[in-house]
Each structure stands twice: as C-alpha cells, then as structure tokens.
C-alpha cells in the first residue's frame, strides 16, 4: 500500500507540475470565435455564423483579430466582450460562482446515481444464489450450440 502511495505521489509530483507550468499555446482566432455567441440571433457561435456580411459576427471577428494582434490573452478578450455585450455573449458558462452548477451538476448527478446503483447492486449480490462461476450462459460455442439446438427444434415445429 505504501509502495503504491509512493509511486502515485511520484507520478503526481512529476505530472501535475508539468501540466501546470506547461506553456499554454497562444489563443487562435477560431478558438476565440468559438467561445463567443453571435448576437445576430442565429444562435450559433461567431465562428459558425455565416450570415451574409453579418452585422454582428463580422465586427466581432475584426475585434478579435485586432485584440489578438495586440497580444491580448483569451481571458482578457472574453472579458472585454462580456463587459460589452453581457455574459450571454459567452458560448458556454464561465467556471465561476453559480455557473459552476452548470458544469458540475451533470457529473455530480451521474456520480450520485452511479454510487446508488453500485450500493444497491452490492447489497443484492449477497442474496444471489451461489451459482458455480461459468455455469452462466456465456456466449461461447456451447451457449451458441444450445441456442442453435433450440432454434432447430423450433424450425422442426414450424415445418
């Protein structure tokens, strides 16, 4: 157990810092466009909106281009758009405050449901009769032959 813990600690010591300090590549134009919703009413991201000379999407694309040219980070650019249009301009909820619920609820629900499922199944495992392992209908050749024999008998009845 201790050995496992040491190995895990070493792995974490090696991997996590490299993940944290690893160089973040500069944001791309399309990445920022995907993170913003076009305000023309199309419901698509700025990147996906292809309205003819869209009065909302095109200026937004130009602004992203100029901000990227000025060396701004993804966070600064998105914050600037959120300040200008409101939070609804972001194509997905931020990972802050109440918006955390948007992200964690599906996984939390799945985790809770999965845990309940495992607990219920475990509590019933004991009740199951002790059946010799492998006596179950495995989909091997024997099971296949048994099924085939049943089907053949059925075919005989049909004929």
């Amino acid at each position, binding site marked *: 157990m201790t050995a496992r813990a040491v190995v895990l600690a070493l792995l974490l010591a090696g991997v996590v810092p490299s993940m944290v300090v690893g160089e973040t590549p500069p944001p791309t134009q*399309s990445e920022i466009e*995907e*993170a913003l*919703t076009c305000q023309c*009413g*199309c*419901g*698509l*991201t700025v990147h*996906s*909106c*292809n309205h*003819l*000379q869209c009065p909302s999407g095109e200026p937004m694309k130009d602004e992203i281009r100029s901000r990227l040219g000025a060396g701004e980070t993804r966070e600064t650019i998105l914050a600037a758009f959120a300040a200008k249009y*409101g*939070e*609804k*301009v*972001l*194509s*997905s*909820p931020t990972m802050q405050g*109440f*918006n955390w*619920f*948007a*992200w964690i*609820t*599906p*996984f939390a*629900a*799945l985790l809770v*449901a*999965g845990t309940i*499922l*495992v607990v219920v*199944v475990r509590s*019933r*495992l004991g*009740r*199951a009769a002790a*059946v010799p*392992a*492998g006596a*179950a*209908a*495995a*989909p*091997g*050749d024997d099971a*296949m*032959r048994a*099924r*085939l*024999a049943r*089907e*053949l008998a*059925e*075919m005989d009845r*049909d004929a």
Partner: protein
Amino acid sequence: MTDLGRLAVCLALVCAAFSAGTSILGALRRRADLVRSGTHAAYACFALVALATGLLLRALLARDFSLEYVAAYSSSTLPTNYTVASLWGGQKGSLLFWAFVLTLFSTLVQWQNRDRNRDLMPYVTATMMVIAAFFLSLVTFITDPFERLAQPAVEGADLNPLLQNYWMMIHPPSLYTGYVSASVPFAFAIAALATGRLGDQWIRTTRRWALFSWFFLSLGNLFGAMWAYEVLGWGGYWAWDPVENAAFMPWLVSTAYLHSVMIQEKKDMLRVWNMVLVLLVFSLTIFGTFLTRSGVISSVHSFTQSGLGPFFIWFLLAVILVSGGLIVYRLPELRTSGTIESFLSREAAFLFNNLILVGIAFAVFWGTVFPVISEWVRGVKITVGPPFFNRVNAPLGVVLLFLMGVGPVIAWRRATPHNLWRAFAFPVGSGVAAWCALLVAGVPFSLAQATFALSVFVLGTIAQEFWRGMRARQAMLKERAPQALARVIGKNRRRYGGYVVHVGIVSIFVGIAASSAFRIEVQQTMKPGDVATVGRYALRYDRIETSEDGHMSSLAAVLDVSLGGQQIAVLKPEKRFYKKPQQPTTEVANRSTLREDLYVVLGSYDPKSQLVTILAYVNPLVVWIWIGGLVLAMGTAIAVWPGPAERRAEVTSGAFEAERA
C-alpha cells in the same frame, strides 16, 4: 368547406372526450358495450381528424388565401411539394397534423388488439384519447387552423425559405411519428399500472411500437442534421440548439428503455425502472413540443412561437403527476425477485449503459434549461452553447461506446475469466491493434482517437458474434457460409438486428469524431481566376452565374475543383434571395466521398469588384454518419420483423384471449 373542417375538429374533440370517458367507465363497470362504444368513438375521432387534415391540405393546394393559415404559410408560387410541407410548417397545421398521426396510431392499436389485451385496451384507448383531446382542444379553442381572414389575402406570405428544402419534407413527419408513437408504449404502461397487470404482456405488445418510435426519432434526428448541414451552411450538422436537444433527449431515453426492457424480459428485473423510462420518453416528447412552441428558450429551429407554452407545461405536469402517482401506488407489485449476481455480467453492463444514456439525457436537459435557471437565480442571461455540450457529452459518449462493445457479449449472470477471455480476446486485440495503428499514423491522443479504437473494439465484438453463430451452424448442419449466416440472423432477428443497429451507431460515432476533430476550414476572398487551397483540393474561382424566376433569384459562384492537378468537379455554392418573404438563404455545394466532404459556402459577392468570399471546409468521414443511419434503418427492419416463434406466439395469444372472452 373550411367550416366543415372546423366542425370536424370540434366533433373530433367531442369523440375523443366521449371515448376516454366511456372506455374508463366500461372498464370500471365491466361493461363490454361501453368499452365497444369508446373504441368506436376513437375510430370516429380519427375519421374526423383525417377529414379536417384533408380539408386543410386541400385549402393549401387550392391556394385559398381566405384562410389565415394558408395566407401565412404558402403562396401562389410555392412549389406543390413545399405546399404539402406547409401543412406542418406552421404551428396550427402542425398541431392538427400531430392529432392526425396520434389518432391514426390509436386506430392501428385498436385494430391490432381487437382480439388481445382486452383488460388493458379500455385504458389504452382512454389514455390515447386524453392526449388527442388535449391537442384537439388547442386546435379548437386556442389556435384554429381554419380561422378566416376578414379580407381574403391577394397573395400568401409564403413558407419560410429555410423550410423550402427536401429534408423538410421528411424531417418533421419523421420526428412527429417518433414523438407520437411514443404515446403507444406510454398508454400501455398506464393501462398496466391502472389494471395491475404488470407482467411482460404490455411490454411484448408494445415492443415493436417502442422500436418504431425509436427508429423514427433516429431518422428524425438524422434528417434534421442533414437539413442543417445542407441549409444552414455553417459546415456542421449539429449545433446543440434547444430544439435539436428536445428531439435528442427522448431518443436517448428511448434507447435506454430498449436495452433495459431486455433485462425485464430475460431476468424479470427493472420493472419500476422500465415504467419510469416509458413515462419519461413520453414526457420528454411533450417537453420538446413545449420548447418548440413556447419560445421560453430561443432557438434557430423555432419557426413558430406562441403563448401555448403554459398549456404544455400544465399538461406535462398532469402527465407526470398521474403516471408518477400510479407508479407509487403499484410500487409493491412492481418489485421483483430478480437480482444481479455480479458486476461482471450482461445485466450490470446494461445497467451502466442505462446510467450513461440517461446521464447524457440529463446533461442535455440541464444545459438546455440552465439559461432559464440562471435568469431566475441571478437575473443574468447566459448562453449554454456547443462548447458546453461537447465538453460534457463527448467523454460520456466514449464510455457509452465502450459499453456498447461489452454489453452484447459478456455473459449473463456472472462472467468467469474464461468467459471474458473467450468473449473479449479478439475484440480487445482488434481495438489495441487499431489504437497502435492510429499512433503510428500520427493521430494525436484525443477523444477522437479513443473513439476510433473503441469503434474497432465494438465492431470486433459484433463480427465475432456473427462469425461464431455462423460457424456453429455450419458445424452442426453442414450449411454453406452465406446460408448459415442468413439463417442465424433469420432465426434470431432481434439479436442480430440489434447488432446491425450497433454497426450503424459505430459508423455515426466515427463520422462525428472525425468531422469534429479533423475539420479543415478556409475563408478566402477571391477574384475570377484566383485559387484557394483547402486541404488536398485547389478551388479556382471562375465566374458568377445568376438566375431568376417568380419565386426567387439566385447567385452562384462557379468553382473548378482540382485534386493533384486533375480537375475533378465543378461546384456552385449559391445564395438565394426569396421574394416572399425577402430573405437570403445559403445553398451549399458539397462534393461528398467516403473519405471526406468538400463543403463550400458562398459568403459574399461584390458586383462592382467581382470579388467573392468563400468558406470552404473539408469534413472528414461525414458521409459515414448518413451511411450509419442507413445501416441503423436496416438493422431496425431486421429486428422488428417477426420471426416464426413470435408470429406463433401472437396467434396463440390472440386465440387464447378470444377463447377466454
């Protein structure tokens, strides 16, 4: 004639209410005459709704612009096929069409069960007629499709140009068919709960209806994706729009039901869960209609919005309360003795498959309604768009794909190491080999890479099942391989049909993963003679072509496409400008091959400078999504076709009940 239509709808509502009332009364008082009366009233209801639908269609085809609906959704220049589609292109028509499909299915169910399920049928009739009465009330009192204009319009406003596409001819009817047919298993579930006949009979009776509903929901979703791909022109086919989500959620839960119901049939387990799933599928179809009609959440697909939202919400609440109450009332009888013996078993794999499917459905639901919740709680409008849904659902989808490989081949009850080795050595080996090949080919470590490797694993399990079935037959009966393969499928259509459906789903997974992860896109402004390079292709802009008729004018950029110096195609992406209403639309030019789609959109054109801006995408393996849909359809057809044993069981069951009566 239109007054006759209104009268028919009113009488249909009366018939639906009468049918529901007398069916329940007949069942409670055990009076066959009342039950028969209820059935006949249901038939009459269908006849009247069919008459009303026919009259509205006739008014559309006759361009009777004295009717508000005809004037709002068609015009004298609208082609006939789209005039037919305008029957479901607007809210009033679509609700009447819904009632038509529902009463048609009700009639089919009555006819199918004329000698069977006599205890259940009065409640089935009553449930379906209550649903019909709800829709007919809306059509009668709130949103009358036969409303006359004070002054007949000279010309119609026309159908929304985005809906003037051939996929729109079949996408909404497919989706409606899927939605509405979900009410059949729901009605039988309610009948089983009401009568206490909670065995497998109602499940066996509705198995084909559940598959039918699932099949049309699948097609409806795929046709909708095809429409979005061709018409919206943004290079993709699924934008996680609320209305798309509304169609996707019942599909997910319906898929979960089709799997968990096998556990009930084989192991007499999950009765409560299956009831919940059936009720959930139906509730989600109503919720979907609420989303489309209420306008509570903005959607690119909501072409008609109204104040109908509260009616749907109240109806939904009533459905949940009544069905939930019945489940709670019958809970002691729904408990079964069956139990899971091991986590390494097919039962457990199916349970986890259900968990993931319902989990994805919940994630989609949560993402769809979260903007409304956020506004309630914080007073701030937010957007939950594709990046959220992709990040949340993609990993869950990969887990689901893995379980799709495990479920069908792991042993029932309890798998031993020997079983596991026999079942998984080849598929796992294939998956690992595919993964190595992907690494060698330089495919980066990603969810797409995992999807490809797992797809090979799943296909390995399916191929192994076919191979072993065929070999066992050959060994025992000395049949030739094709004959043995055909017979092994024919004798167990449900099982092998299911495998074929899985092949289709794998194909869809591969198409989605490849086109999402490896898409190439280029936007370029060009003058005649300029060349744009998009992936392997060179696109030379040649000229602009224009055309005009009474209905619209169009502008197409002519592009010569070359591959390796050889001209392979001429593509003409278009912009169309409809005259009524004045609205531009995009007509994508797409060269589709098994390897990739070259998808080109005309962004803009400046007549003065002759400059065009094109958006060109190379979408890898997209066609496999549509091929997957075809395979899925084939598999469903195999699964739904009755084998000799089922036909015999049906005849026996009918004869037995007839004798008992």
